[in-house]
């Protein structure tokens, strides 16, 4: 049994942590949220130079051949700093789909640029009334000469506004909500028939409603196997779920530390509020919630390559624990900061908001409880 990081992994932690400390303080992030683009291209290029964008890709594909643990490390550090750059969408989601299902041609055209930080990507898997069911796909892909024509709408595509490439799910056969008959397509974000409505999200990201109005794609743009996209998508969403579990763990850690520090220094009734036993127990409960969440995030990451059934249960179990812990820690961090916790000025509310949305992302607690119990 060994929960220790290798020397190489420790170096990775050091480098991401140093970046958060030196280059991504709270004011920097605040300026990014207010900016037109909603992310910093120069920082993204730096991620590329540091090799972070190449971490999960095989050496054969020009990557570093990292495991899920390396992704977990990066995401956990990003969670501590509330990094808004599109790592999840570009590297974990789109990168994951290409890694597991992309053709040699797709990998050759997309991955080098993606790893260099010059190409951004996003994935459209949700639709206006699909809720969290990845099989609930109404977008259609009709066969046409040399390819397909896509029609439909993808909703809340995270990091959509900055994406150069999109990967979307569409139905090539079967009825709405059938797992069979779903196909994934690589689409140029600027292709004719693609239109976007961009908007900010409550947790500081950017997203798009994307309408596909007769978008022509070629046979060569199919990612994975025609009609069998569901299993691929589900696998990659599970990987992304484990990644945001790690991100949440990082955010919870920062939030717990900040609250602990506040309880030690905020004086009311002539003593630090941390002297009151209710506050102590609350901080203990937060601490336990954090530790339980961390354990489950590790567990899920280690099971991502297991058989689908085992992987699914592990990821859903982790997401349930993270959802509960994130809600508790987020709410209590605000509560124990009193009025300060409510402000936009303090970082606490921003962590709380991100944790709230992580609870929703890729299925909320109810959804994953059901999936686990199924």
């Amino acid at each position: 049994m060994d929960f220790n990081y290798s020397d190489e992994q420790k170096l990775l932690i050091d480098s991401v942590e140093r970046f958060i400390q030196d280059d991504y303080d709270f004011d920097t992030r605040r300026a990014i949220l207010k900016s037109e683009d909603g992310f910093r291209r120069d920082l993204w290029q730096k991620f590329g130079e540091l090799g972070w964008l190449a971490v999960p890709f095989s050496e054969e594909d020009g990557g570093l051949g990292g495991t899920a643990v390396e992704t977990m490390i990066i995401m956990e550090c990003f969670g501590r700093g509330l990094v808004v750059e599109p790592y999840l969408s570009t590297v974990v989601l789109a990168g994951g789909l290409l890694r597991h299902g992309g053709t040699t041609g797709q990998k050759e055209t997309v991955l080098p640029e993606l790893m260099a930080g010059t190409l951004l990507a996003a994935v459209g898997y949700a639709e206006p009334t699909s809720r969290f069911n990845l099989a609930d796909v109404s977008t259609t892909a009709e066969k046409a000469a040399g390819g397909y024509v896509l029609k439909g709408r993808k909703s809340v595509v995270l990091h959509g506004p900055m994406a150069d490439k999109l990967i979307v799910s569409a139905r090539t056969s079967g009825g709405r909500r059938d797992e069979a008959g779903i196909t994934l397509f690589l689409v140029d974000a600027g292709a004719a028939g693609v239109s976007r409505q961009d908007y900010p999200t409550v947790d500081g990201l950017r997203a798009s409603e994307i309408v596909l109005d007769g978008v022509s794609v070629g046979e060569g743009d199919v990612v994975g196997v025609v009609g069998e996209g569901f299993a691929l998508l589900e696998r990659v969403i599970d990987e992304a779920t484990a990644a945001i579990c790690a991100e949440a763990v990082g955010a919870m850690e920062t939030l717990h530390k900040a609250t602990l520090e506040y309880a030690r220094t905020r004086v009311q009734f002539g003593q630090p509020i941390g002297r009151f036993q209710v506050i102590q127990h609350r901080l203990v409960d937060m601490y336990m919630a954090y530790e339980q969440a961390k354990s489950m995030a590790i567990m899920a990451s280690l099971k991502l390559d297991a058989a689908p059934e085992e992987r699914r249960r592990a990821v859903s179990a982790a997401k349930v624990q993270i959802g509960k812990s994130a809600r508790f820690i987020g709410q209590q961090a605000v509560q124990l900061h009193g009025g300060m916790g409510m402000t936009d000025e303090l970082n606490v509310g921003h962590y709380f908001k991100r944790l709230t949305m992580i609870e929703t992302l890729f299925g909320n607690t109810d959804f994953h409880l059901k999936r686990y119990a199924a």
Partner: protein
Amino acid sequence: MDLSFSAEDLAFQREVRSFIAENYPADIKARFDAGLEPRKEDFVRWQKILFEKGWVAPAWPKEYGGTGWTATQKYIFQEELGAANTPGIIPFGLSMVGPVIYTFATEEQKKRFLPGILSSDVWWCQGYSEPGSGSDLASLKTKAVRQGDKYIVNGSKTWTTMAQWADWIFCLVRTDSSVKQQEGISFLLFDMKSPGVTVRPIITMDGGHEVNECFFDNVEVPVENLIGQEGMGWTYAKFLLGHERSGIAAVARSKRGIAKLKQIANTEQSDGSPLIEDPDYRRKLAELEIDLTALEYTELRTLARESQGKGPGPESSILKIKGTEIQQAITELAVEAAGYYAFAYNRRAMDGANEPVVGPAATAFAAPSYFNMRKTSIYGGSNEIQKNIIAKMVLGL
């Protein structure tokens, strides 16, 4: 024991209901039903409508402009306002400083201040909390030094709700630092346009502007603006907090919140059927409704005791704690119902800009509302402080 309404009560209920139906302005209703950020003029306009009817201050004694209603009638009135989703009565004038004035102030002060409170021509704000004095309010430092017929006020207040709209502030100030801290506090009223008053906005995490910092730099306040006696401010302040807590159960509003949740759950789709048919979601809604029923009957018992002349006791802390937990839980379930669309930050539409929202209108502001409602377990005496009160005053620990 009988909780059914009498024939007179039912007639009263019909009267209130039809009054609201005929007089609640459609444009305000539209904004409140849509969940937009409230505007000052909406509150004022609606309060003036109630004032003209003579219904704006049911809790006040009749001689000062109250209605003389029974406890049951007051309850019915609140229920009907809640069900119609009218703007909440802004508490600072009518529920807070008003009762302090008619209970502790001079005849002259009553004549001067009560009419503006009743007519909503004067907007008040509450200057209690300071950066260093939140839960421990009695430690407050804002100083008022008497010079002839004036007090000179220096210091700052924070979290002052809607101070940006306020004409006047009622303020706790320290007039004596040589005595026990509770005994050196006085209750002062002053004009927010006085030289030396600066108001700075605090933006909350949901993006709204409802609280402010207020800075006082040598603000001159005439001594006739002191309420009661110098050094008695803490007594008046606690009297007021008792009033602040009653009504904080917000049962009628929460009923309406749950009704809205049901509407949302009826239209949100989950695997091809309405979310309301999802057993997990249904169960959570049911639990919430049961919690609210328990709170409603607890509040009724409190009201009944009050109507027998036993004023709001420390038990009203139960209403604050459970009431706010339920209000918060309603917003949590709205976020869950919204699914992915909870991500969309429709702030400009929420502020009233005429632009379409992303996702269904019914959940367009679900996440910001959830974030905002975290305030309810912090303000008005945090829920931890309320539990301390129950432990000490009710349980004798």
